[in-house]
């Protein structure tokens, strides 16, 4: 049986190596690339990211990736956004002014209240009965963000709470966004990542 191929979208933003090494350790073939022809050959794409929303969107645009990602998602092919990558899936963000996102998840990204950053290990609360996440118990996951997604409740698969409650896993078809860092959440994160990839690629 051939191993699943994961494409990691390289748009010059963030720590791609960590994601790549984690996925490789989980048994997947990994290709880090900004070339649509490379990415297109993969079963699933991961959109990682660290940093601010506007330069990240500009970097995707500069590499000609926004149209490619939208077309691929429209074709129903799996896409997983992590941290900033999840936020980029939204329609817009208010970080440093209003910036349009990829529009693959209906919703917008806004600042967490009271100058708060959400940093460290937190528990998540599952919403709904999506089997991709049913194995999550009382584990904690590693968060590192200051903005969060606001979207329709029907898209939310899990929430976290820091004074307010906000979505941390969302799904719209074959597009999933995870606000925390599963690749840096030790065993719990790796198990979740494996379940999500397996579920998305075998649905």
């Amino acid at each position, binding site marked *: 049986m051939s191993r699943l191929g994961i494409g990691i979208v390289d748009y010059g933003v*963030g*720590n*791609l*190596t*960590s994601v790549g*090494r*984690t996925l*490789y*350790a989980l048994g997947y073939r990994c290709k880090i690339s900004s070339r649509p022809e490379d990415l297109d050959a993969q079963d699933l794409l991961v959109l990682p990211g*660290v*940093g*601010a929303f506007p*330069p990240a969107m500009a970097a995707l645009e500069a590499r000609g990736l926004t149209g490619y990602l939208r077309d691929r998602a429209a074709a129903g092919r799996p896409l997983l956004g992590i941290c*900033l990558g999840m936020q980029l899936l939204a329609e817009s963000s208010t970080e*440093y002014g209003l910036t349009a996102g990829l529009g693959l998840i209906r919703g917008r990204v806004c600042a967490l209240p009271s*100058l708060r*950053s*959400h*940093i*460290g*290990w*937190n*528990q998540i*609360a599952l919403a709904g009965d999506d089997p991709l996440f049913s194995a999550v118990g009382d584990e*904690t996951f*590693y*968060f*590192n*963000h*200051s903005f969060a997604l606001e979207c329709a409740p029907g898209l939310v698969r899990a929430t*976290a*709470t*820091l004074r307010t409650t906000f979505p941390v896993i969302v799904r719209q078809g074959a597009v999933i966004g995870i606000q925390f*860092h599963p*690749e*840096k*959440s*030790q*065993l719990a*994160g*790796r198990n979740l990542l494996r379940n999500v990839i397996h579920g998305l690629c075998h649905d």
Partner: protein
Amino acid sequence: MTELRKRVIGVVTVLDGWAVQSFGYARQLPLGKPECVVENLDRWGADEILVLAIDRSRRNLGPDLATLARLATLNLGTPLIYGGGIRSAAEGVAVVQAGADRVCVDALLRDDLPAALNLAGQLGAQAVIAALPLSLDAGELRWRDYRREADTPLHPDVIAAVAGGQFSEALLIDWRHEGRPGGFDPGLLSAFPVQTDRLILFGGLSETEQIATALAHPAVTAVGVGNFLNYREHAVQSFKSGLGGLPVRPPRHPADPRSCPSPS
């Protein structure tokens, strides 16, 4: 429990590419390869790992990307923070691209605060920590400039940046008592002029009771422990075992299936 957990951060001091024990910013004893120390902390379930390369700013060498490249091969499951030698926003971004999840800035706060703020703008405030080596002299808070071996008052612009949330957290380092068992001076915490609930304490935190007291403080989100994690196996779990009642991750928290069993 749904609240954010307080963290025990394993601190690895690096000098000339080697992990060392450090005492009072003055004396160092070799430990070995940073990869080995970091890998242990990862296996033991540290909440974050902070690598501080202490010679990089002194020698104007820039960040230690070679060490980061070696650490990147470890496939760490634990978030990695790096500090040392960052002279510009571009170098801070390069540190993240080399495998760090967050960066710590110290000399940059003195040399070029706008560059530190620019870095926070590029990476997001959540990814940048302001490292402040401090001491108390006659009740007055002093900010250590370790390159010049001099102390000054904390600069008002740095205070304003921390107070304004320009950096995600401030790392208060009791540099004078670093490496001294039970040495951390809690007076630093009360003298710190910013009302915030995002402080990390480091330097002379060696005893479980002392760590528990520090983490119970509402302003403290994390503690850094350095030398004292190297004196026994599973030191992270051992410390955490004594932190019952505090919102911390449980001590039995294997990083991955490679992990050795926790001490019984």
